[in-house]
């Protein structure tokens, strides 16, 4: 077996909790109202994640978007169907998404060390400890995918 690698990155808590799961990266801002609750798939036309499911993922994205009500409604419906992301990692925080994540108890962090963004890839397994502001990537040498 190759050597196991483990890297830890500092971040800041927005909504507390812990989560572990595969990473999914979105280049575009995400409006959860435009995801299909039953499948977790992003339905928005032309979106970076169009047709991909965010269910059970550690979702890495620039920020949220959408009106004062739709973001909460979208994430709530996904949660009810068991298809919400396990955690959110954002670059920019906005009040609407922050309050939504806290209310729905979805761990969310921001201000992650730059190095994280250089090393991260879709499918990597991430452990997020929002309360202590830590993200851990674990895997075999050369890849964080298991």
């Amino acid at each position, binding site marked *: 077996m190759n050597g196991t690698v483990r890297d830890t990155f500092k971040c800041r808590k927005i909504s507390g909790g812990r989560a572990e799961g595969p990473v999914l990266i979105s280049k575009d801002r995400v409006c959860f109202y435009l995801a299909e609750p039953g499948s977790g798939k992003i339905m928005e036309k032309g979106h970076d994640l169009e047709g991909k499911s965010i269910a059970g993922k550690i979702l890495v994205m620039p920020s949220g978007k959408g009106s*004062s*009500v739709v973001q*909460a*409604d979208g994430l709530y419906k996904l949660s009810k169907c068991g298809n919400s992301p396990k955690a959110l990692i954002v670059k920019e925080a*906005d*009040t609407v998404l922050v309050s*939504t994540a806290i209310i729905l108890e979805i761990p969310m962090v921001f201000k992650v060390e730059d190095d994280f963004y250089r090393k991260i890839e879709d499918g990597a397994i991430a452990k997020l400890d929002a309360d202590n502001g830590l993200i851990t990537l674990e895997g075999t040498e050369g890849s964080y995918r298991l």
Partner: protein
Amino acid sequence: MPVRLNRFEEEMLHGKYGEGVSLAMRVLVGIGETFDAERLVDITRAHVSSSSQDADIWFAEKMADLGTTCRVPPTLNPNFDFRYIDDHLFETPEKGKAMITATNEAYKKLGAIPILCCTPYFEQNVPGFGEIVAFSESNATVYVNSVIGARTNRESAQSALCAAITGKVPEYGLLLEENRRGEVLVEVEADIRSDFDFQLLGWCYPLKHDGFEIPVFTGLKEKPSPEALMNFGTQLNTTGVVPMYHIVGVTPEAPTLEAALGGDEVKAKVTITKEDIEKTRAEFYRKPGKIDFAMLGCPHLTLSQVAEISRLLEGKRSMVPIILLTNSLTREMAQRMGYLKVIQRAGGHLIPGTCVDIPSCWAPFQGKTGVTDSPRCAYYNELLNITFNIMPIEKCIGSAVLGEVVE
């Protein structure tokens, strides 16, 4: 950085006033920590954009079931007057009725004020200059910040409700003087005059500049009416996210360009040309020909708009239903002043407390074609596959009387 709390706030956070208050405090402190707020501050007013959607009902019921009430009773957004609609237009879907009833019940327990209006800033919940408030509903957030000079962040329905419950908001963002200065300079070359022109300008700006900065508009030749400013802010927040703007010589924090910028450098310059506006005006004719209905009142119609519609309909008879949305005060006043009977005789419906964006209730309009003066009304209803031609009020009424789109 932790948010500094006083003793009362600590007690609210730790459950002395119940689990609902504690939850509300956790949300507010969480927001405060995220945005590096040093402390919480008192609010004197709140408006909650209750939407009668699943998450809205869930959170309001959760708070109500915990026995929570609001320290600062918030006013509420419109939903759907199914009694009126059932009697005059169509049978509201049962699912929609159940959602509206659940929403109204939950907010009643919370002690909210059911003005059921999305323009509280005109009559029923009017902040003063510099007043700290928590207003969700993007058209209200932008109006009270920009036109009145009150201070609110762009709250979600839930964060505004938490603020109403505790009477507190974290101090960050637009609550602080230094974050209210203009950042993007917008030169309006186009000739913007009518209330409808401001719909077009509001729609166009975010398409030319995608960012969260505060824009400063210059070059406007006419002083906008209250309705023009209502339209403007609404559309800025349909294609974009603009919780505050300045218009030099019009809005209170922009007596001059220098004052609006507060000595800061401009981060970007944008020009809105005649071509931008005219291209949008043409694109808004989406499906000319026969129409099924007209819908006006997104945001809610003011009394002067109702008066104009009444004048346009005097002695006429509409070919299709004219749906006019407003608040109960304006409807009452329209009745007293004789506008209501003119509108009703012509085939119009002046409906209180109702919003264009309640998909569970408007479902029977799926697949239909209409006219509206509001781009936002058209945008939200794309989800329901309702097609709107967007044009000034007088053309909407003209189209309804004719039964087809007038050019």
